[in-house]
């Protein structure tokens, strides 16, 4: 982390799990405090003069899968891109109010190294974007631009990432073949391997399976479920079934606001808000 950010370590560090005091142990039940990976506080976001996101408040839990659902144009992908400042690349797009903390750091602080942030908050897109390079180079790229030159370290890291992405057995004998020669599902897993090779804190996924067949989709979902033991995932999806299968927490967005945010099982069995129930049960609009 940048030395400039030390003084910006606010009370939003990762919470410790259990406070081991005798007072607490005497309580009939001890509630484990939830660890937070990212904290979005009162965020407004504009494209030009259009207010796209309004007063967003979300706490993304560590090592959990959080799904963003909602109709098209409601701001899900916009919020996702706020978390790694990809919106910085869009002219006149900006966070106009509020703060986003990752690992206790305000990521919109002017002193933040955006390239480093994007290493720590990786992204997988709807359309897999394997580089027109070898499979090996695709996965090693992030490490190389971070300055890693040791070939042994690179080889080990690439193998580790490809194994974690459940792709190693399929590609280990052809690492120097082009990444774009893989199937759609394999390319998407290659992109996941590329994202996790740099050991990010959070992995953002914008409809990662919408271009995949059902089997490839299930493989990617299974991968997400396994990797969530180590990484934090935020996934934008239009598939209600995918959200209910894969995620631990779900946030329902509508017209730039978070309408409801809860455990996925509660969201899909007994949502609090009428609009949520109408959307998830197909009675919207």
């Amino acid at each position: 982390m940048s030395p400039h950010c030390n003084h910006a370590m606010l009370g939003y560090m990762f919470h410790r799990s259990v406070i081991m005091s005798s007072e607490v142990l005497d309580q009939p039940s001890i509630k484990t405090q939830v660890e937070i990976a990212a904290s979005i506080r009162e965020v407004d976001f504009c494209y030009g003069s259009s207010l796209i996101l309004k007063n967003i408040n979300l706490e993304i839990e560590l090592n959990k899968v959080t799904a963003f659902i909602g109709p098209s144009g409601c701001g899900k992908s916009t919020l996702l891109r706020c978390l790694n400042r990809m919106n910085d690349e869009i002219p006149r797009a900006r966070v106009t109010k509020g703060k986003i903390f990752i690992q206790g750091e305000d990521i919109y602080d002017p002193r933040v190294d955006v390239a480093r942030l994007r290493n720590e908050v990786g992204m997988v897109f709807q359309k897999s974007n394997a580089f027109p390079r070898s499979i090996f180079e695709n996965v090693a790229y992030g490490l190389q631009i971070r300055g890693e030159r040791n070939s042994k370290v690179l080889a080990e890291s690439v193998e580790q990432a490809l194994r974690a992405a459940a792709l190693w057995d399929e590609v280990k004998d052809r690492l120097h073949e082009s990444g774009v020669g893989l199937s759609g599902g394999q390319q998407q897993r290659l992109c996941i391997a590329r994202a996790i090779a740099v050991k990010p804190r959070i992995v953002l996924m914008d409809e990662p399976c919408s271009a995949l067949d059902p089997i490839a989709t299930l493989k990617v979902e299974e991968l997400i479920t396994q990797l969530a033991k180590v990484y934090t995932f935020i996934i934008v999806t239009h598939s209600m079934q995918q959200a209910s299968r894969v995620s631990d927490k779900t946030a329902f967005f509508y017209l730039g606001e978070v309408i409801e945010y809860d455990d996925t099982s509660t969201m899909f069995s007994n949502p609090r808000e009428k609009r949520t129930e109408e959307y998830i049960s197909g009675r919207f609009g």
Partner: protein
Amino acid sequence: MPGGHIFRDFDHAIRNLKDEVLLMASLTRQNLERATRALIERDIELSRTVIGDDSEVDDLEMKVDHTGMEILVRHHPVATDLRLVISSMKISTCLERISDHAVNIAKRAKKICKGSDLPEVTLVEPLYALADSLLRDAMTAFTDHNIELAEGLKLRDKELDKMHKSLISSLSQQLEEANGKSESLLHLIFVVRSLERVGDLAVNIGEDAVFLGTAQDIRHSSRKETKDTESD
């Protein structure tokens, strides 16, 4: 739910499911009423009708399960729709069991009719009236999402339990006195047991209605209350 589903087949399937459950409830109540009437009026033909009509209730139970499965497989319902499918399938099981009790009463009625006149049969009328009202109100709670009505069934069933206990005690005493009526009295005791079970099953339907309306599971709440009292 104010608006219809975007996919009209889904609303159609849900409507079918509800209709099947309501038809099943209607036939079940009819069977129970006829079985009790057959007993009191010594109508063997009516008993036979009840026994024959039970197969229609059995068929409906399978139909409800089939429709429910179809909805789950094809439409992946969530929230209230999901709870409706689950509670419909559970309620159909309760209704099928109530109809089986109606058959039991009808069979016992046939046996009693073959013996000499048994004035004690009229003693079951108040139990039948209460059991039927519990069943009627349980189904109303299901269709109207009336949580208060559903939650009140348990207390009312306790009244039925008291009546059952008292009548069983009285009939058992008479059994000891024998005088040629003992076999019929024994059949009558089983009829009283069946009516008590109808009350329990109506309470179960009420619990499913609460689950449908609020997603709360209120089953076994008396056991939880006992546990809390013991731990105090």
